[in-house]
């Protein structure tokens, strides 16, 4: 009799157990919801980016980073930190991405450490470039291009390095300039070999070819870039301008029969892209 527990005490304990259980379930559901939402938004961001809907992609990645951040606070996991880091990397928030990948690594994601290092290097290179220290920035971008397998950092480094090398080549003697640009193109060729379906690499190649005066290759690369997709509206427009420029110059320089065949082929592409005519992309005169 002495061991009997008063009913009121029992029910109070039951009540708190139920409350605790309910709370745990609610928290876990919220956490799950945040994480699932983060994954869904990250995937949506990738889809938008592939379809050149940059602003939507950015919005999706921002939501993914926020949701993954909330999920990580509630229940830290390698997955939630990885999604957070990926979204941050796509948004160019390299320092935050580095921290997220390191946490993912500490929770068991094996690649987290190298991705964190790549994110750190990308962020550092961007800071150097911002302060006008182009030589170290170039070295860091080159290092990323040589050894990284983390796509967002690779794409970032390819774009920035191309920009810096082209800007630096403007004042060089023709021979030095051609040597610098040929070296750049070789690096871009290696990237294309590794990831042929990345439209950005073909766009960059087309730009460098334009500087080297190889307009035929530039045109082909720009067509490829447009077909494979580009990560931003402005890049798409710039690529279209490159296409028009190459088209006009090539048509002038080719022998009559070849020029005619080329014009017909270009007209087919232009029709496929919904251009108004061979030299007017649909977005002109917005």
């Amino acid at each position, binding site marked *: 009799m002495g061991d009997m527990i008063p009913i009121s005490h029992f029910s109070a304990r039951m009540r708190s157990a139920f409350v605790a259980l309910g709370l745990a379930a609610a928290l876990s559901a919220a956490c799950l919801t945040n994480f699932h939402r983060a994954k869904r938004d990250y995937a949506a961001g990738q889809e938008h980016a592939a379809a050149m*809907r940059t602003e939507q992609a950015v919005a999706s990645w921002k939501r993914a980073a926020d949701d993954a951040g909330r999920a990580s606070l509630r229940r830290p996991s390698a997955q939630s930190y990885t999604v957070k880091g990926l979204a941050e990397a796509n948004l160019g928030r390299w320092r935050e991405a580095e921290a997220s990948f390191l946490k993912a690594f500490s929770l068991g994601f094996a690649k987290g450490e190298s991705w964190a290092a790549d994110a750190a290097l990308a962020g550092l290179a961007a800071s150097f470039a911002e302060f006008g220290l182009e030589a170290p920035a170039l070295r860091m971008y080159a290092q990323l291009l040589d050894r990284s397998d983390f796509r967002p950092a690779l794409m970032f480094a390819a774009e920035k390095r*191309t920009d810096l090398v082209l800007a630096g080549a403007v004042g060089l003697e023709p021979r030095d300039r051609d040597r610098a640009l040929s070296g750049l193109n070789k690096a871009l060729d290696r990237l294309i070999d590794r990831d042929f379906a990345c439209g950005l690499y073909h*766009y960059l190649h087309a730009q460098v070819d334009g500087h080297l005066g190889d307009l035929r290759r530039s045109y082909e690369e720009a067509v490829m870039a447009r077909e494979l997709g580009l990560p931003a509206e402005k890049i798409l427009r*710039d690529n279209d301008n490159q296409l028009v*420029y190459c088209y006009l110059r090539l048509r002038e320089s080719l022998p009559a029969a070849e020029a005619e065949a080329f014009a017909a082929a270009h007209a087919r592409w232009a029709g496929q892209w919904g251009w108004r005519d061979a030299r007017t992309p649909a977005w002109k005169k917005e």
Partner: protein
Amino acid sequence: MSKKSLEAALARGVEILNGFLPLKSWLIFPVLYSACVWAARRVFDFRERILAWQVWLDPDFVRTKPDEFILAFFCGHEALGREYADEIARGDMRALRAAFPALYPIFGLEDVFLKALFKAEIDASDHRAIVVAFASRTAKAVEDIRPAAADPEFWKALFFAAAEAASLGLHLLKDEEVQNMIVALVKKPAGAAPDLPPDA
């Protein structure tokens, strides 16, 4: 479409945005106009476009172009070709290359926000003034918009203003008409903040 109801919708938009951009009314025109263009032309995805807006000048395309490309750009644009006829004739690539970074995003890539930001100069065909003011005005725009941009309510307000205007048939008007309508509304409130860019 009733022009009056459209004007009233834009006026509401201007009034609400005034609350987010106090004393920065010169920014309301480019912000609202570019939102309206997207609202009218890309109805299905513009909400996220606007909510995703970061800055307008993110360096995402290759800015260094070969001389021939720059020349083709100037020669291929009627007004620019006229304005820079001397430089083109002299083959003065230094001058053309210096002007290119300001003029290409506006006339080559047709950036809606920049077109609105330099409307006064574009209307006056004063292309050299764009080149002179480009760096400072765009930097100031980004700086001035930053506090408002951090507030999600700002984007929501902008979205609703542009969406309402779009739903009232904004796309049926010419670009210039929409621009003039917003400019007139921005200038309207007596004693309100500067309605022109600070260095214009």
